[in-house]
């Protein structure tokens, strides 16, 4: 691997004398009456990292799925190395040297890392035996090349999302994929993990591969990519070398308008303490104490795996804890009782919206009213009519984009799903809202809507504990930042003193931050 990752990102795209590695021109795709992609275009050059950005619903995912062989295009050209191709299956796309790494990789949890890398194409020794030695040796070599320190013999279960992605990348490289597409790979990653991923991406670029990087995070696009293509409303807008554009320029292209304030946190009067956590300990975190006051947004920063979500889950009662107390408004909340926490006025918008936040196969109405099913019931009885009334109120307050309340939640876009989860919890009229990764994987328009909403809620006297892996979000929104590292709170920084540097420092170093 390359030991000198290029830190400057202004490498111009390779000259287009040879045909580009992958080229899409005016590709269209519809599902019935719904046009998912009107006119998508994209040129990936060898030895280049290309960013694809756009709001949710802009058509990025559809474009990627056409490249991956999941969808067939209705119209337009798709060329690989100058030759027209048409994939009818993912297998054909893979065989042509295209690898797609999704946000949440799907490894086999009970198999080892090595077995996962070789899934479905294990090297065979004598008598048709799987040649474990050869497999092991190749994985070690691969990991050395990629600079990865994962134990090849451990089971995939319990690996961080970052490590799982690296394994997917290793798989792609071992298949000699020439085109690597990464769909929001950094969404669930912490700073250090992102750096490692970028290092790997750069070394793959230097080997002459073409990389496509889909992201909502501009700082990463600018740090990593050479060229950027913007899509909007199912159509190609522009492709620009990264050195010739700015965040403002890209945002304007993405939304077709100016976004003046990405992180509006209005000053609110901070009043009495609401949520008081004292000495909370479990095998996953130690001696956690903090207070959230009315009108205050407390940011909980740290690397993924620092124990932030675990603390949130314990406070809300989804997980048990060994020691410590949780009080809300002075009254103790019993441990391991989400229902009691809810009644006391606590709400948790969980980290994994698709698994923990929503019943994906259930309707919007049922999802919004799941947590308040007992309060909206009259004489212990509940009807769809009652659910629809309550759901309608919250769907319109949060401007959920759906036609009918009976729409299945899983078919909504990420941003709208998050609004449904928010509506579900705001409907419980909480005094303190814990929100874990409020804007992960949602489009920029919805993102600022969510931020505005949080700010407004704080203004009306709600206490908010916001867990976020996006530093700008934490710095922009929080009145106070708590930083966790390896299960402990390592720093508490006031809004005025908080900078990316000192938060990052506390998240990565034990010493130097006040306890």
């Amino acid at each position, binding site marked *: 691997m390359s030991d000198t990752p290029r830190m400057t990102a202004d490498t111009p795209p390779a000259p287009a004398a040879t045909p580009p590695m992958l080229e899409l021109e005016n590709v269209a795709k519809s599902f019935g009456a719904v046009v998912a992609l009107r006119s998508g275009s994209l040129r990936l050059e060898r030895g280049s990292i290309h960013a694809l950005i756009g709001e949710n619903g802009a058509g990025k995912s559809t474009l990627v799925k056409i490249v991956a062989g999941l969808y067939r295009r209705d119209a337009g050209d798709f060329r690989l190395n100058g030759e027209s191709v048409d994939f009818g299956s993912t297998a054909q796309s893979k065989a042509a040297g295209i690898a797609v790494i999704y946000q949440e990789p799907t490894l086999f949890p009970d198999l080892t890392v090595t077995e996962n890398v070789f899934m479905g194409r294990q090297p065979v020794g004598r008598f048709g035996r799987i040649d474990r030695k050869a497999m092991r040796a190749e994985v070690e070599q691969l990991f050395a090349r990629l600079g990865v320190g994962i134990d090849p013999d451990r089971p995939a279960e319990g690996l961080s999302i970052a490590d799982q992605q690296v394994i997917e990348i290793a798989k792609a490289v071992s298949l000699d994929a020439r085109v690597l597409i990464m769909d929001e790979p950094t969404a669930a990653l912490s700073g250090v993990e992102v750096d490692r991923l970028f290092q790997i991406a750069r070394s793959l670029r230097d080997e002459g591969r073409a990389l496509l990087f889909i992201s909502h995070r501009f700082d990463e696009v600018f740090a990593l990519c050479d060229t950027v293509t913007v899509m909007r409303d199912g159509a190609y807008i522009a492709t620009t070398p990264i050195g010739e554009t700015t965040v403002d320029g890209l945002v304007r292209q993405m939304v077709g308008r100016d976004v003046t304030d990405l992180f509006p946190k209005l000053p609110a009067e901070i009043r009495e303490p609401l949520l008081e956590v004292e000495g909370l300990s479990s095998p996953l975190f130690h001696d956690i104490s903090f207070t959230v006051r009315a009108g205050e947004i407390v940011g909980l920063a740290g690397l993924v795996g620092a124990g932030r979500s675990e603390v949130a889950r314990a406070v809300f009662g989804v997980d048990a804890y060994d020691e410590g107390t949780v009080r809300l408004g002075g009254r103790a909340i019993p441990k391991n009782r989400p229902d009691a926490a809810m009644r006391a006025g606590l709400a948790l918008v969980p980290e994994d919206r698709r698994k923990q936040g929503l019943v994906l196969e259930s309707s919007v109405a049922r999802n919004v009213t799941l947590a308040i099913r007992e309060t909206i*019931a009259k004489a212990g009885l509940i009807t769809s009519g009652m659910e629809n009334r309550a759901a309608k109120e919250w769907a319109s307050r949060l401007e959920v984009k759906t036609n009918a309340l009976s729409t299945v939640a899983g078919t909504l876009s990420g941003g709208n799903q998050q609004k449904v989860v928010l509506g579900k919890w705001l409907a419980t009229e909480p005094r303190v809202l814990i929100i874990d990764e409020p804007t992960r994987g949602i*489009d920029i328009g919805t993102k600022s809507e969510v931020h505005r909403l949080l700010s407004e809620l704080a203004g009306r006297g709600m206490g908010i504990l916001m867990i976020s892996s996006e530093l700008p979000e934490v710095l922009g929104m929080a009145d106070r930042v708590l930083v966790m590292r390896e299960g402990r709170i390592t720093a508490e920084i006031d809004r005025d003193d908080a900078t990316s540097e000192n938060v990052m420092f506390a998240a990565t170093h034990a010493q130097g931050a006040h306890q």
Partner: protein
Amino acid sequence: MTATTTAAAAIARSYRDYDRPLWQRVLLTREMAIIALVVLVSVVAAATVRGFGQPITVTYLLLDVMPILLIALPMTLVMITGEIDLSVASIVGLSSVLTGVLTAGGLPFEVAAVVALVAGAVCGAVNGFLVTVVGLPSLAVTIGTLALFRGLAVGLLGTTAITDFPDFWTDLAKARVGGSNVPVVLFVFLVLLVVFIVLLHFTPFGRGIYAIGLSKAAARFSGVHVERTKFVLFVLAGTISALAGVFYTLRFGSARGDNATGLELQVIAAVVLGGVSVFGGRGAIHGVIAGVLLIGVLSSALRLANVTSDVINIITGALLVLSVVATSFLAWLRKRRKAPGGTPRIEASTAG
């Protein structure tokens, strides 16, 4: 596609309650298909099978399927949470034997029957404890207790039968209302039916049952008592099974250790036929009732047409497989139409 935030705010959003008109929501369901099938089979059988159209057939049909109807109620709820209870028929046997042994031992029948019901509840609690507290899969647990409870039943009474029960009760089990063909026990069932329909479809508890079946994690994060709900349902299943056992004993005037052997499979077949997913989260009581009746009508008509029981088994089995295949086929077709080749996970991320 994506409307901008400001545009969305400008348009006052109105939400329809449903994306399909009422008649479609009512008629185009699996439950309605099964109900239509019940009507169709009944009409055809009444017209072609000699004797099927007689009122007495209806009486016997209802008495025959009564234990299945009763147990199908709690089984529906258990299966919607994604669990299963295979021990129900053994609980029927055990409660039958307990009623017999205690009555023969000198206890009044009423007391014996109540003891049998309590025993059924305890059996259900054993299942519930092993599934929710110990955390074992219900399939394994209830295969075990299927053998255990049946073993207890046979052990208590051996291969003999107790046939001495108060005439009042044995007559009541077969009695009809006035001069009609409606068996009295139907009213017991109807009361329970209303209770279960309300419990599943019109209470917060019922909403929790569906949520557990579709996503255990989301249910837990929403304050649903996942384990407590399941425990309650296993106890209900045990109690209702015991009730079915008491009825079974009275109807045939015989308490035996091997009463109702294999009934659990008929119950589960009817529940699945009625539209309950074995993976949980889906199904409705009216569909299940139709499922039970369909199997009952079909086997009754075939029996009257002198078809052997092997062939009846083959036909009901084939029907069950067909209904399951049809459901997944229709789901697959719907998905194909919406997003060719797309998996639900990825599909969801594009919808905007």
